[in-house]
């Protein structure tokens, strides 16, 4: 039987009694009770791992870039000589602009197509889950394998794309997909977009799902059409997620290696090199470790500025 008013306070008293019992248990003084020691112990594994796999290679890279080290030759400090040499190297300049071009377009395509896909997938339809899951396929296939498949599709002789276009009556002569530098770079952008779009779509979809559907209903009652609803409600609320995804993507695309390495190998005639593949060619394939390190270090200031700008913008968005 329920009890009036008094019953409530009786329960509260019981709870209050339970606490002193718990704290009256004898305490075990130990080294780990000291917060400083405990913090140190907990941090050590992370610090060791980060030091071994991030800090040491980075410092080593900087040192190599400032030295004349090559395979079999410890080398010596040469100052900024490697950087100057790289900047005066026409192939490096091509690689540098290729990297900017490749990153810029691939990011634009991934963002716009990913957004479109996310908005489509955010609707309710039959088989929604299956489509969402299968969309991730390009993302989970190892890049090297999928790029090999693409290389076959772009193959100068056996290209299935050329065959389709030719059979479809769209072209008369075969397109030089990978045998022309400009075509090659666009092919790489296409493959990168194909591979990276799911990540954008899934991240943006997650962002879309945090937006309260009532806001769209309120906006439609307020007289907003579909475009207005996207522009005035969805996009502003999705901006923080979008920025994070874009920063991630720029970092990954700017330092991309495997896709170009497998698809074109930097060719034809070094016309499709990115900074990473050119650094590999000079540093590892040619054995000029110092020069290779200098080339790869050119990525640092660019990425630093991009990340700094976007993080600053993100912070302003959050603070506003």
């Amino acid at each position, binding site marked *: *039987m329920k009890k*009036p008013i008094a019953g409530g306070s009786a329960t509260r008293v019981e709870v209050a009694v339970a606490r002193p019992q718990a704290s009256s248990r004898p305490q075990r003084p130990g080294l780990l009770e000291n917060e400083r020691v405990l913090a140190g112990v907990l941090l050590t594994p992370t610090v060791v791992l980060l030091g071994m796999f991030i800090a040491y290679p980075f410092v080593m890279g900087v040192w190599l870039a400032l030295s004349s080290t090559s395979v079999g030759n410890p080398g010596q400090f040469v100052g900024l000589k490697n950087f100057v040499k790289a900047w005066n190297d026409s192939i490096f300049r091509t690689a540098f602009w290729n990297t900017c071009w490749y990153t810029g377009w691939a990011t634009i395509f991934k963002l716009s197509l990913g957004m479109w896909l996310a908005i489509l997938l955010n609707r309710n339809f039959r088989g929604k889950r299956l489509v969402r899951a299968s969309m991730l396929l390009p993302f989970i296939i190892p890049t090297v394998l999928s790029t090999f498949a693409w290389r076959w599709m772009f193959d100068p002789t056996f290209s299935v794309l050329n065959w389709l276009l030719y059979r479809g009556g769209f072209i008369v002569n075969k397109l030089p997909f990978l045998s022309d530098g400009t075509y090659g770079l666009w092919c790489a952008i296409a493959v990168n977009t194909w591979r990276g779009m799911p990540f954008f779509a899934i991240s943006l979809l997650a962002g879309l799902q945090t937006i309260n559907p009532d806001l769209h209903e309120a906006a439609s*009652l307020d*007289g*907003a059409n579909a475009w207005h609803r996207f522009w005035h409600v969805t996009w502003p609320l999705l901006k923080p997620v979008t920025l994070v995804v874009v920063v991630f993507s720029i970092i990954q695309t700017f330092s991309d290696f495997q896709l170009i390495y497998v698809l074109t190998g930097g060719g034809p005639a070094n016309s499709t090199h990115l900074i990473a593949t050119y650094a590999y060619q000079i540093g590892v394939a040619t054995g000029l470790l110092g020069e290779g390190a200098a080339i790869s270090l050119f990525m640092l200031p660019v990425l630093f500025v991009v990340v700094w700008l976007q993080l600053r913008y993100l912070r302003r968005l959050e603070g506003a």
Partner: protein
Amino acid sequence: MAQVMLKDLNKKYDEVHAVKDVNLHIRDKEFVVLVGPSGCGKSTTLRMVAGLEEITGGEIHIGDRMVNDLPPKDRDIAMVFQNYALYPHMTVYDNMAFGLKMRKFPKNEIEQRVRDAAQLLGIQELLKRKPRQLSGGQRQRVAVGRAIVRHPQVFLFDEPLSNLDAKLRVQMRVELKRLHDRLETTAIYVTHDQVEAMTLGDRVVVMKDGWIQQVGEPMELYSRPANKFVAGFIGSPAMNFVDVTINDAGGSITAETQGLRLTVPPAKAATLRAYKGQGVTLGVRPEDVHVATAADPAPYSFDTTVDVVEPLGSEILLDVRAGSATLVARVEPTVRVKVHESVRLAVNADRLHFFDVKNEHAI
């Protein structure tokens, strides 16, 4: 300002028939409250009026237009949502101005309307803030402000007070009522809280399982419920129901169960005679049960044992047992009784309700 007509309105989802043959005429400037337990179809009905749900069958008229196929933006209505649905990235001013901007109002008129609404609601000093910098009550006001700047034909409220704490809810309830008196706009208000429904509505529509149970003015629902559901839903604490058998005791009709025997008041005797020998449900509100005095006639008094005493300050609720029946009585705070004591109670004979056991309609 407009009337709203719902004709044979139906809504079916894949497996659920959420709204069934709803017919309702909401008069111009009227404040109508749809009330019922969750899942009764009240919100769905409102959302169909707003154009946020497609109509499976029937017609909706706002003013003299049929709006079945009009998108929400063309229905000239404004809605206040349960969670306010304020645009989090816009200031209060922009939230209120958004609907006017979308409709391409001139800038100075937008400004004028927003300032007027802000003044009416006492939120002038909040215009530059973002929604997350506001308290629940302030957000509620902004949501209302966003609706009134548009000067719509109809206001729709979807449980707008249910996210507020009890005290604020009472305060906002009064403000909404005052606001409606002032703006004189037709309003449809959805709530599951019967107190809100009773206090706000010019008329109240009680719904259950997609059906309208009864439409009427608040006091009409309270004093003449159409069926057992409405009787139990309206009023707090809820009406007591006791299963009784109707007997003919030499001229007077009685309602009996083990340990309780009441004479059916003459006004109802004629109709209840038809139920002789059968069971019916007797309904009596807690406020119509009182401690018996010498003045109370014996046919309407009975002995009970007190199970629980709930002193609320202004009144005392007694959970009592009369034979196999249990009842709640709302008695004067001066009454002194203890648990397990016996007490003689009496009912107000003219306020007894009887319901058919099968179809639960009032007899």
